[in-house]
């Protein structure tokens, strides 16, 4: 069987920059293929070569076995319909008139619209859920509605191949899903659809196959789960990514983090957090989101902070419930504090049982950040020892309120990195 779309060695240069570089791919009839990739990867340009708007510098595009470059635009427009990405408009045609323009390829210059044309327009507006907007000026509907109006226009065009450029970018969650369900129905009816979709989860969920574009080349092609892997996403988007299986839809789901560390060539910094009684839980979430590797302890195994640490997959030092921090736990804390780039001391209740944690921090010369939360006299049940420990921590570390912790840790880590190679900085 001839593929519905064959792209063969297509290169396009725009404004002196190579936007597509020897791209070859094919799309079988009745498939929904998603184009994914970072901004500027060439997704829109590839669509524009398929609908004949751009003539490639090299290579050819065949739709339904026919070379697009040799077809006039009327012939192409009977094969390929396009829903453009930007549908901003300043002219106030009624919505129905816009959808009727989709029939242009089917009406001769001197012809008039037939009943079949009107039926096609009605059905297209109905399927795209814009019938109720028929008489409204297209300038007076919302961006999402306008996107559906242009989808309706493409449906009215009644072509075997449909190209969608970010069809869901302006849509709310409900209409995203409804629009893609409609597209899936069209594919079931035998149409071939190529869609540039920036939402990787939606692309994985709806598309039969994906093409991952990066720097004008196709980097991966095939079923979504084979195209979207940690490595391919990281390479294309420059972001740390975790690809998991979505619990509800069962399709691939991508969680990405801005990759600060790899961008600056630094290793990820480690932070040890002294918590207890849930005092560290918000800090742990903030530090995790900021990209730090975390260790926590020592805390009671059933402490809220222990629970949070497990959720965040942090390195955890625990003691049994109601037991004091023993020597073994104290050594474990000291070792982690020494290895860490920074230590954060939450505004925990200071009791005889957890004083060894604070001791351990003071034994290291790792920079530390003390959270200035509840006043010490309201949270100290360890008497003079507790007061002395907290006061020494405050003297030697940075004292910040809860909102300033991440920034203070970043500052401490940077100083720590500066200090380490020399190892000569005398500490008081």
């Amino acid at each position: 069987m001839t593929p519905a779309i064959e792209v063969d060695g297509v290169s396009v240069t725009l404004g002196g920059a190579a936007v597509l570089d020897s791209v070859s791919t094919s799309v079988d009839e009745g498939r929904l293929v998603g184009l994914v990739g970072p901004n500027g990867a060439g997704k829109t340009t590839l669509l524009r070569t398929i609908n004949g708007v751009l003539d490639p510098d090299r290579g050819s595009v065949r739709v339904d076995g026919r070379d697009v470059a040799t077809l006039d635009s009327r012939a192409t427009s009977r094969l390929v319909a396009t829903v453009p990405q930007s549908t901003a408009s300043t002219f106030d045609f009624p919505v129905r008139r816009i959808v009727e323009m989709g029939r242009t390829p089917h009406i001769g210059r001197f012809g008039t619209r037939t009943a079949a044309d009107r039926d096609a327009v009605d059905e297209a507006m109905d399927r795209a859920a814009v019938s109720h907007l028929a008489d409204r000026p297209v300038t007076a509907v919302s961006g999402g509605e306008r996107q559906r109006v242009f989808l309706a226009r493409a449906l009215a065009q009644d072509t075997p191949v449909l190209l969608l450029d970010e069809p869901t970018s302006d849509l709310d969650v409900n209409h995203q899903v409804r629009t893609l369900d409609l597209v899936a129905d069209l594919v079931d009816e035998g149409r071939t659809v190529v869609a540039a979709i920036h939402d990787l989860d939606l692309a994985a969920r709806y598309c039969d196959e994906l093409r991952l574009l990066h720097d004008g080349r196709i980097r991966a092609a095939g079923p979504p789960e084979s195209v979207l892997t940690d490595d391919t996403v990281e390479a294309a988007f420059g972001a740390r990514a975790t690809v998991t299986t979505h619990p509800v839809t069962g399709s691939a789901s991508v969680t990405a983090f801005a990759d600060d560390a790899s961008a600056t060539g630094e290793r990820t910094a480690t932070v040890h957090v002294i918590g207890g009684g849930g005092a560290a839980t918000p800090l742990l979430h903030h530090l995790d989101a900021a990209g730090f590797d975390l260790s926590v302890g020592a805390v009671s195994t059933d402490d809220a902070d222990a629970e949070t640490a497990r959720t965040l997959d942090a390195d955890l030092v625990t003691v049994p419930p109601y037991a004091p921090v023993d020597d073994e736990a104290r050594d474990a804390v000291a070792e982690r504090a020494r290895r860490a780039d920074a230590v954060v001391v939450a505004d925990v209740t200071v009791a005889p049982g957890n004083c060894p944690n604070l001791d351990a921090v003071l034994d290291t010369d790792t920079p530390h950040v003390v959270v200035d939360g509840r006043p010490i006299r309201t949270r100290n049940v360890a008497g003079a020892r507790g007061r002395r420990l907290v006061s020494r921590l405050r003297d030697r570390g940075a004292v910040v309120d809860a909102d300033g912790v991440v920034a203070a840790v970043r500052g401490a880590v940077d100083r720590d990195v500066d200090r380490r190679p020399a190892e000569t900085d005398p500490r008081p």
Partner: protein
Amino acid sequence: MRTSVRTGAWVVGLLGALVAVTLASATIGPVDIGAKSVADIVLAAVFGGTANAPESSRTIVMSIRLPRIVLGAIVGFALASAGAVMQGFFRNPMADPSIVGVSAGAATGAVAAIVAPVVVPVALPVAAFVGALVAAFGVYVLASEGGRTPVQTLLLAGIAVQTFLGAVVSFMLIGAGRDLREAIYWLMGHLHHSTWTEAGVAAAVVLPGFLGLLVYARDLNVLLLGEEDAHSLGIEVERTKRLLLTVSSLLTAAAVAVAGVIGFVGLVVPHVMRLLVGPDHRILLPTSALAGAAFLVATDTVARAGAAELPVGIVTAAVGAPFFLYLLRKREVRTP
């Protein structure tokens, strides 16, 4: 089918207005001729028979007033329809029929013919017509590259060529001497000394050209969505642009060649009609054309009604500009 019914109703209404303005205009002048006499004379001329009016009145109406009125109608018709096309073509509300240098080219040709030491019969309108088309073609060639003509480039090339030709005209005016008055008068736009021959020649260019534009009205609508969209809907974009540009330049050149530079008709009338009938060129084009015809006949009547005749271009600008500003302040003028 609703569009064709609406179009029909508007066309009939505007045709009625044009006939009314024509008859009213034909009664106005230094010699008083009543509306009934004018109607009799015109009916007799169209359907044969003898008019119930003095022979002198018949001569005044048929040989002096009517040729001028008909020519004014044709010029207004051409400028307003070309203006509607250019505003849609450029998707720019400030576009007018002369935007690609047609009027500047016509002015250059006309002033050259006026200041030329030898007097050649009918040289003036021919020089203006040729100058207009050469300028428009030059702008098109300057703005084209690799088979494509981006409208923004066309716009800028048009402005540059207009400025250059403006300098050429000014230079010629400095050395015009005794011809200066005639040249200035031509540049202001005028309809005096109109003849049936002029009206016939202008109509021979304008009417077929207008029908051509009408055939492409649907393509022009699709072009409003943007060139990429138009291409994906099956419009041969560059060919259509070339055709629209050529035909509207021809219409404008014909109008300017016989009547000089008459401003604002091609800018204001399409805006007003877009306000009334919407952006669909299948209805906007014919209604703008007829409204432009009626408007120019009416303003020319005002121009010649006073003790001293004014160039009609002064009247159209004096009436049109404040009205346009009024619409602008009411936020009624929108981009096509």
